[in-house]
């Protein structure tokens, strides 16, 4: 039981770190794609938090009982995939939209390509925010189901968010770079999925392999950051 709660709280720390890191990463990526970094930070924060709220509300509509544990695992896996893929998704979509507009001879001044890029970029942000918003209510339910009397999930969530916010400008933004940062955060989400699959009296089958596999993929992306960066810039430029 203690080991199970340990996995739960460890996963909470990782999940909270990843959630704040996604928001800060997205703000930087969107300022690259859409320009205007000063405004971008505030509007990204606003839309992301709105999506968190919608996700939290939706979590209340999910099936009760053991199914919520599985939902949480699926959310972590989805976030791991999305998180690692943020740069590829954004820059790839932007290149596709640009090519489409050139093929259809749609002028840039019409605003159609800008609008499409905006929709795609914010669609990703809303998706990540929505999934992240479901996490804390589901974690609190899981903690209650495991017999936790005092909720530690909430304070750990905030404490880990602090670590994420402080480490972002120095470790991720100026240190690792955005690409490696995205890969790292995806790895952490994969690890959190693995840890959550160990919560409870028996590990949840199937999800352990997913968690390990995604973490491995993230590590590969991290290691081959140079090649990924070169490919992305060729697509982007």
């Amino acid at each position, binding site marked *: 039981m203690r080991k199970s709660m340990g996995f739960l709280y460890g996963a909470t720390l990782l999940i909270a770190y990843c959630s*704040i890191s996604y928001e*800060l990463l997205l703000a930087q990526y969107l*300022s*690259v794609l859409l*320009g*205007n*970094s*000063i*405004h971008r*930070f*505030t*509007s990204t*924060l*606003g*839309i992301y*938090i*709105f999506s*968190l*709220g919608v996700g*939290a*509300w*939706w*979590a*209340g509509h999910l099936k009760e009982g053991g199914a919520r544990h599985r939902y949480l695992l699926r959310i972590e896996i989805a976030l791991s995939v999305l998180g690692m893929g943020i*740069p590829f998704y954004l820059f790839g979509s932007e290149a596709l939209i640009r090519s489409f507009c050139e093929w259809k001879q749609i002028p*840039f001044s019409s605003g159609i*390509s*800008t609008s499409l890029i905006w929709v795609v970029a914010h669609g990703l942000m809303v998706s990540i925010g929505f999934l992240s*918003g479901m996490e*804390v*209510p589901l974690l609190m*339910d899981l903690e*209650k189901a495991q017999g936790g009397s005092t*909720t530690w999930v*909430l*304070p*750990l*969530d*905030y*404490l880990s*968010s*602090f*670590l*994420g*916010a*402080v480490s*972002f*400008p*120095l470790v991720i*933004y*100026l240190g690792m*770079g*955005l*690409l*490696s940062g995205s890969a790292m955060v995806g790895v952490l989400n994969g690890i959190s999925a693995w840890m959550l699959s160990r919560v409870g009296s028996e590990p949840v089958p199937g999800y352990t392999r997913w968690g390990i596999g995604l973490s491995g993929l993230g590590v590969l992306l991290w290691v081959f950051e140079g090649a990924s*960066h070169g490919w*992305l*810039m060729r697509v*982007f*430029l």
Partner: protein
Amino acid sequence: MFSSLFLASYGSLLFELSLAKVFSLLSDDGVLWESLTIGVFLFGIGLGVLWGNRSSMQSISLASVEKYLFFIGLGSYPLIEFIHIYYRIYLFGFNAHSFWILRGILGALEFLPLYGGVLTGLEVGLLYRRHTEISGHRPSMFFCLYEFGAVLAAYTVTSVSYLCNSDSLPFLLGALCHGWIYTQMKRPFWGLWKWKLACLALGIIGLEGGNRWMEQWQLKTFYYNQPQVTQRDGRVFIQPFGLWEWVWRQKEYPAVERLHSHYQVLDLVSDTEGKEWALYLNHHFQLSTETEYAYHHALAAYPMTVAHIAPKTILVLGAGDGFLVRELLKYPSVEKIVLVELDPAMLEWAKGPRFSARNEHSLFDSRVEVVAEDAWWWVRHHTERFDAILLDFPYPYGSDGLRLYSTEFFSFLRHHLQPRGYIALDVPLWLGASGGSNEVLLATLQAAGFPHSLGFQSGGETFLYTGVDCAMEPPPWTKQDMITPIELPSVSEGTRGNHLLHPRVLGFPDRLL
């Protein structure tokens, strides 16, 4: 219950975001201080929630927490301004030590978001308990409502600063929210307390007036009360004046005209006679009417001389004040200038009477096409080619604005150059006592396909000239022009440039804040 939830999160986030904004303005490093402030705030919330779970804290009332949040919201802005004034008078000295002292002071002031976060954490715990008592264990609805308040706060901070031209009003709005919840806890809304709430709101409006006075005192201290010896009316002044003397002496100096735009803070600082003035963006010096001619003339004229071309089409990025365009329009070969400026407020000032008298109405010239757009976005989505591209952005001393000095951005610019075209930009090529020689920027240019660059200076300002296949031989120096070439450092093997997805700070100059 629902309104309290919403107002609680709205007020708390208003407080945190306003703090982050003020800190990033004072330090000129938005990425670091916004991330740090939100992080410390979240840490405080975590501590507050943990502390609130302890049985010894079960008796603490929501009303008490709201009261403390109310007072911290009211007092934070004047406290920060006062401490900054003290720093500028007694601790600032135009050297690298001052920069670290300021960072230390702002780091110490992080106790404000920490304290606010702890109180917010206590508030969250108490509100959740009340929510559970009323509607059962439903964390999803609780967080949903809490997040919606936070969303509105994010948009309020930028909108209020822009619409009301004030940094302090969001603090007071946040305090008002907590004050409202306090009155709700103590008494129901209907009844005598309705009038007391009205008095509260009026009191806050009065406080905003006090904050505006405080802001002017801080701005005058920043711009006028600097280490210097001045002479006026036959009297010699040795500055900075001490704190208490400055309180009454600052009335002798003209008010600093401040404008909050969506993108930056613009300050117009006049001399005591009101004849000359200077423009600052986010506290960074941009131009002064006394010295701007030498700067803009050098940036316009020298690259043309080196390149041996008479450019017909010129792209100007930044320089929304119109002075650079004024110099370029003096050349008869120029047929078209496209000016891309991010901030419409800057363009509005540039077209106004004060600037137009100096820039000779350059932005109204038929050859000039003015575009209010992000330079990155414009360059990325247009294909027009130019004979010359001139950059006049605020230099990114910290991690903000690195995007416009990245390998990828310069690669885009390369595709906008005509054959034998050139790029010129204002760059601090020597970085003072803190060392460094801007190798990073040179490495960035090389990675972008500009293997060779030339440096030149005029009146203490330094510039870079570069291109792909343009001439690179500096002309013979003449005393008349006072524009001299300067030797650039060689880029060390393995120096990594500044890339879009892997940014690198462009040297680390002595800070002037």
